């Protein structure tokens, strides 16, 4: 073998190519039967928790039931961790390789709808019935410019959670119903040791995020924007909003609110579980996790207290099912969406902590006897969605930056919200 060139072209490469080709052929051979059995395969991306029963029930109960009803459709479900999900969706839209059906956070639906990435579903067969049967709050999160681009799949909201033992010790009988009562109770539940160090806080706002402070704003009659979402000035910096945020920040400065509001200290679950925080706020998923970690913790719950200018309100969370425009099988994808909205599928998922979106679900015995869904369903009656606008991510960021600056004492709440409102006005224009 004299020449480098010849040596290169001949045996090794040929061998590698041959091996690779064989491997590919084998792979194709093994994969073929699975693909050939069904006429249509739908890719379904979701963020169901792989650690909890959510994904197990989806894969072992719900999807097999659908495939039995529709033998010509096969669902390929892929779980993706929530923190990566948004970017993965953006990348797949940009790259033109999209999943057929996606279970996405309700707050992303307007963004993807505006991008033109979603199938408009309000003229599809059966949509009317779904729209009539669903809670209006979650349904509203699928709307963009007068049309619907998905169906609500599951819903949730937050309520106040508290440590029953600490309430008993402090002699508190009734859960507080107003901001004033809440402040009084929270003060009673705050304890210092001999050296003046706080050992127990009355309440922990889990973090300085809009998801946590919005229920307080709304319960005081405040708002982010006007109803038509054209401007924030006069709303985000309005007296009711400022008053609600001041209420939280003043309690924090008083030492009644845990340092979680400034992203410090024990996280809200650990604090509640260890008896350091008497109250916090969270969604229904907190119950099973807290129970598992702190078996002796007695968790109580009540609705958000109402401020002087409003009534108890919380924030709507949850997921929507959307169909991507790039899907080659939108008809089959819609069949799957309809199935997921059936009472059967909704109740299956309800057993894993996913609250159903169907109004009729309240009458189901499972829901009636459930230990903590009742309070969330009650709170959902008045819960509000976050602003359904494509610029929400930026709006939220702006609000949070302003709130954090006020928490840090760098500016007054009013001044912080004035400039945040002005900035958000620019986003809405």
């Amino acid at each position, binding site marked *: 073998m004299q*020449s*480098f060139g010849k040596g*290169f072209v001949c045996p090794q490469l040929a061998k590698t190519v041959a091996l690779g080709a064989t491997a590919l052929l084998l792979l194709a051979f093994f994969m073929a039967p699975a693909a050939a059995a069904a006429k249509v395969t739908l890719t379904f991306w979701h963020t169901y928790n792989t650690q909890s029963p959510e994904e197990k029930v989806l894969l072992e109960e719900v999807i097999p039931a659908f495939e039995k009803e529709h033998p010509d459709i096969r669902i390929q479900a892929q779980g993706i961790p929530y923190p990566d999900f948004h970017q993965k969706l953006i990348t797949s839209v940009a790259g033109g390789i999209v999943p057929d059906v996606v279970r996405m956070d309700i707050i992303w639906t307007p963004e993807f709808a505006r991008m033109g990435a979603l199938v408009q579903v309000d003229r599809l067969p059966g949509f009317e019935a779904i729209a009539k049967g669903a809670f209006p709050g979650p349904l509203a999160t699928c709307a963009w410019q007068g049309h619907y681009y998905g169906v609500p799949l599951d819903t949730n909201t937050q309520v106040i959670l508290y440590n029953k033992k600490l309430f008993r010790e402090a002699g508190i009988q009734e859960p507080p119903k107003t901001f004033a009562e809440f402040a009084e109770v929270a003060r009673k539940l705050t304890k210092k040791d001999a050296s003046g160090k706080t050992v127990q806080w009355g309440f922990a706002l889990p973090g300085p995020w809009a998801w946590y402070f919005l229920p307080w704003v709304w319960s005081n009659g405040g708002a982010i924007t006007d109803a038509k979402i054209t401007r924030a000035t006069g709303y985000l910096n309005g007296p009711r909003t400022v008053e609600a945020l001041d209420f939280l920040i003043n309690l924090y400065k008083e030492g009644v609110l845990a340092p979680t509001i400034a992203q*410090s200290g024990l996280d809200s679950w650990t604090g509640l579980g260890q008896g350091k925080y008497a109250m916090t706020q969270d969604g229904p998923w907190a119950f099973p996790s807290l129970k598992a970690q702190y078996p002796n913790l007695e968790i109580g719950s009540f609705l958000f207290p109402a401020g002087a200018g409003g009534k108890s309100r919380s924030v709507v969370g949850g997921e929507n099912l959307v169909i991507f425009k790039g899907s080659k099988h939108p008809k089959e994808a819609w069949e799957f969406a309809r199935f997921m909205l059936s009472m059967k599928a909704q109740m299956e998922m309800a057993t894993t902590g996913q609250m159903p979106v169907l109004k009729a679900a309240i009458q189901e015995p499972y829901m009636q006897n459930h230990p903590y869904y009742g309070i969330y369903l009650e709170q959902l009656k008045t819960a509000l969605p976050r602003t359904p606008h494509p610029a929400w*991510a*930026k709006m939220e960021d702006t609000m949070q930056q302003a709130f954090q600056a006020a928490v840090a004492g760098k500016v007054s709440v009013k001044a912080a919200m004035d400039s945040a409102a002005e900035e958000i006005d620019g986003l809405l224009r």
Partner: protein
Amino acid sequence: MSVDGVATHAHPSAPGFPAGRRPGPWHPSRQERQEALAALAFLLPGLIWFLLWTAYPLLKSFWMSFFHWQILGGSTFAGLAHYARAFADPVIRTALENTLLYAVLSVPGQILFGFLVAALLDSITKGKVFFRVLYYIPVISSWVVVSLIFMYLFHSEGLMNYVLVDLTHFLPRHVPWLSQRGTALLVIALLGTWKGIGWSMLLFLAALQGIPSEVVEAASTDGAGGWQIATRVKLPLLRPMLMFQVVMLTIGAFQAFIQFYIMTGGGPMNQTQVFLTYMYKQAFDFYDFGYASAISFLLAAVILAISVVQMRFFRQDYEY
């Protein structure tokens, strides 16, 4: 010499090897042409990879930086608007300050400790490999993992506060290390330093072992002591290596991302943003790909400018 092709051609003096070619215009023989073709075949996968995953995205994002970029089409021309916006953006200023501060806090430490460890390892005879591996482990550890470990250590209820406050009463109260700008930058720079020492050490060690023993012996014969040999003989010989490290580590510091993204996310209030976390936020939180691209090209310009200045500063006037 082996008759086998590989062994023959691996030697530079062998006929047909490019280095042995006579000067003048190239009239390739059949064999030479074949070899060029073979070389191309070897280079092609890497070249395609580079064009596809480096050159193309680079040019594309430069193009995007002049548009109000929309993912699914309908982008409109923005001219220099994104660049103008960046110059007026207070967060860009913060990011520049933070990035500079991170470089200033982390680069000298890495080099200094890297050199010390290398000098120590160079002088010991036993356990050289063991310690070399030990110091190199942080370098090959995942940024994500070590960031999470540091987060745990410096959490406001974490180990560091426990030791400094509850155990030793060195500090009066728990420090929210990662929730305020100054301490967060300090902690992240500490992580960067700790993680980078091994890299610097390995390069210095290689350079130290490359110093011919004759030079050291000659200095010793002339009456130079250990300190003099270190500072007057070895250090000047390490100068090119030092320059290489300063430039590379500074570039690395400007490209810091994972540690900031994980440990502070640029918060609170954008106080700990660096160029890449802010770029990422614009791109993937706000889909402002045009602005994000402009930010990354500004970063490239800053890195280029700093590297040029550094190279000038370290230019070698004399040779040994």
